């Protein structure tokens, strides 16, 4: 299971966000360049289509593949009170013939996207991962080099933390409290809930940039 929240930030403030996260997390950022394949099962695998995502990490010297299945979100009154989304997730590293395997089993490529950005992975009560990426679409199949951002002016911020059935409340609280630190720059919410941008983000961003001397870390 994982707890996840999403938010958006204007591309012009991403550098300030990076500085803020650097200060909060205390770890260096990791580059993110992931080619994501979203595979949907064909009719031979059951009447209900299921979705599996294959992530190819292109930031590493040798590309590493991960398979990931995100399940349905937790529902109920308790889930509604949480400010984060809790959903079941299965993730595993796979070898690079996973794509072939899934095709052979009967999965079809539904869509693919390229996520480019950075991520911070740190520990604050629980291991938290903050990723700031721009979603890029490819005009032709697998044409990574021609990928263009789907929304050039806005990037996606996603905060996830692994959880278990018995501790998801603490994890949710940890993620929520961390989100409080990011309030000057962005609002975070459950995936699918639209938040808008923070109007005063420009002022916060400029103060962050000026404090650090405008140097990229």
């Amino acid at each position, binding site marked *: 299971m994982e707890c996840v929240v*999403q938010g*958006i930030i*204007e591309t012009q403030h991403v550098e300030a966000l990076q500085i803020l996260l650097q200060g909060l997390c205390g770890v260096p950022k990791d580059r993110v360049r992931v*080619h994501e394949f*979203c595979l*949907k099962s064909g*009719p031979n695998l*059951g*009447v209900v*289509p*299921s*979705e*599996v995502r294959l992530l*190819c990490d*292109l930031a590493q010297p040798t*590309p590493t593949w991960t398979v990931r299945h995100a*399940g*349905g*979100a937790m*529902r*109920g009154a308790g889930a*509604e009170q949480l400010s984060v*989304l809790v*959903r079941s997730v299965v993730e595993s590293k796979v070898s*690079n*013939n996973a*794509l*072939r395997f899934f*095709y052979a089993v009967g*999965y079809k*490529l*539904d*869509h693919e*996207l390229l996520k480019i950005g950075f991520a911070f992975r740190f520990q604050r009560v629980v291991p938290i991962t903050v990723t700031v990426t721009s*979603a890029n*679409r*490819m*005009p*032709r*199949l*697998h*044409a*990574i*080099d021609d990928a263009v951002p*789907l*929304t050039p*002016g*806005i*990037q*996606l911020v996603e905060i996830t933390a692994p959880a278990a059935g018995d501790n998801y409340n603490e994890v949710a609280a940890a993620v929520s409290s961390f989100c409080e630190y990011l309030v000057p720059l962005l609002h975070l919410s*459950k*995936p*699918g*809930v*639209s*938040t*808008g941008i923070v*109007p*005063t983000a*420009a002022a916060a961003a400029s103060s962050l940039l000026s404090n650090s001397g405008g140097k990229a870390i």
Partner: protein
Amino acid sequence: MEADGGAAPSQGQLAPPAVEAVAPPKVERLNPVVQQQLNLESVKTRALGLYKTISHILEDFEAFARSNTTPKWQDALGQFSMVSMDLFNIVEDIKNVSKAFVVYPRNVNAENATILPVMLSSKLLPEMEAEDTTKREQLLLGISGLPVHMQIEKLKTRIDMIGAACEAAEKVISDCRKAYGLGSRQGPTLVPTLDKVQAAKIQEQENLLRAAVNFGEGFRIPIDQRQLPTSLPSHLADVLSFGDGAQNLGDNAGAYGKNTSSFSSNQGVLQTAGGQLIGRSVPSPSNAVSFDNASTPPMAYANSPRSGTNIMNTPSPQQQVQQQQQQRQKILQLPHQQQLLVQQQLRQSSAAGVLGQGVMSQLHDLTGQTQQKLQQHQMSYSQPMLQQQFQNRQLQTSHMPHNIAQNQINQGSQLRSHINQFSGSANSALFNAAQSSPNSQMITNMSASMQSQSLLPRIQFGLTGGHTQRNHPSQMLNDQMFGMGPSNPANMIAMQQQQQGGFGNISTHTQNLQSGMVNLPNTTQNPNFPQQRQQNQS
């Protein structure tokens, strides 16, 4: 060592006693004015207080060092600034009267004998002296040849100019402070707001991005463009071969997959059985609320105890297979254009998602894709879908005096096998009415609706499969009434409007479903939904 400018307090303390000690016989008194100005007592107390503060701070730092905790730098800096301010004030006061005194070193011993002259000298260090002379030369550049009083005048004018410049700068700063609201200590009172246009653009971009990342909207490539490129990226080069890739994209199965994907995304919206959408009063974008995206098939709950009409509604396996085959034929026969049209409709507003939900929430237990297609296509493919709808209509309407047995409907599924291209729920409702025991009320209703529909274009729709009992009277009625093939929204709206004067509950429900399908802003339909759900679950 006391003979240091920095140790002014001790200097002040020592000088009078030194004076007195040296000449004990002559009890000299300091000039009372000087003494008053010196104010020894206060200097002593202040010096002692300063000493205590500094030692206290040092103790705190030692404690921090011992306990390995980080000191609170804010407090430490504050204390330090206080201490330095105190020291500065004391030194200033002493400086005023230091001219009256001379430093007389007392403890001259071996260590400090050599350093004393250096410390006592008032001559500047060579470097400092050189710096001083260069500055002096800079200052008097050009006017050093003039007589002194003229030099003085020139320097004075310079000072005045600098003073004027400083004043102007201060004025500018204060004006700016007022303009930006920084003058007051409370901070900016105006919260910068985005103008509407900008906010709308950002909102649109945000929705696009969220939908894209969560559901893949906007990333799908049309079928005809899904050919493998001649040069694959390096990480795919050995993964895919030309043979593999082409099979797994694009084709009809891909279209099937594409449709199902977009359906399932919307279906997630429409089928949150937990009622999350219903609980919200704000209509959210159709993709925005779907938590169980296509990855969790909502149909997983199809046979769970959660769905009320579980057992009765599952068609027999034979029928199911038959239906699926026919569905697939239908899908393949769908023109590409219509698929795109449907996809466009899927992306439209929240109303579709919100309104469709109440009806859709009942449709749990039938084959997944069939339901999806009916929900979002204007042409319905599946009989199970129809079955369910018919059952819904039955349960909801008061026109039906009795709940039609599900078996009856299941039996009739073979009759309906040819009706693959429905264009509206009104048709299904009418069909439903026709299927039930035709009482007079039904017939009058049907005739009314028939009349309304007679204005609509009669488009032939393709019939496939075997028609077993075409001579059923209700069947004939249905054929005539359902003369709408691939209709467009205009027809739907027209039909809906015409039917408003018709029968009661059925019409409202049809309106509901239609608005769910056709993206009509019928927000008035919302109150019906809780009602519907309750009725269905009872």
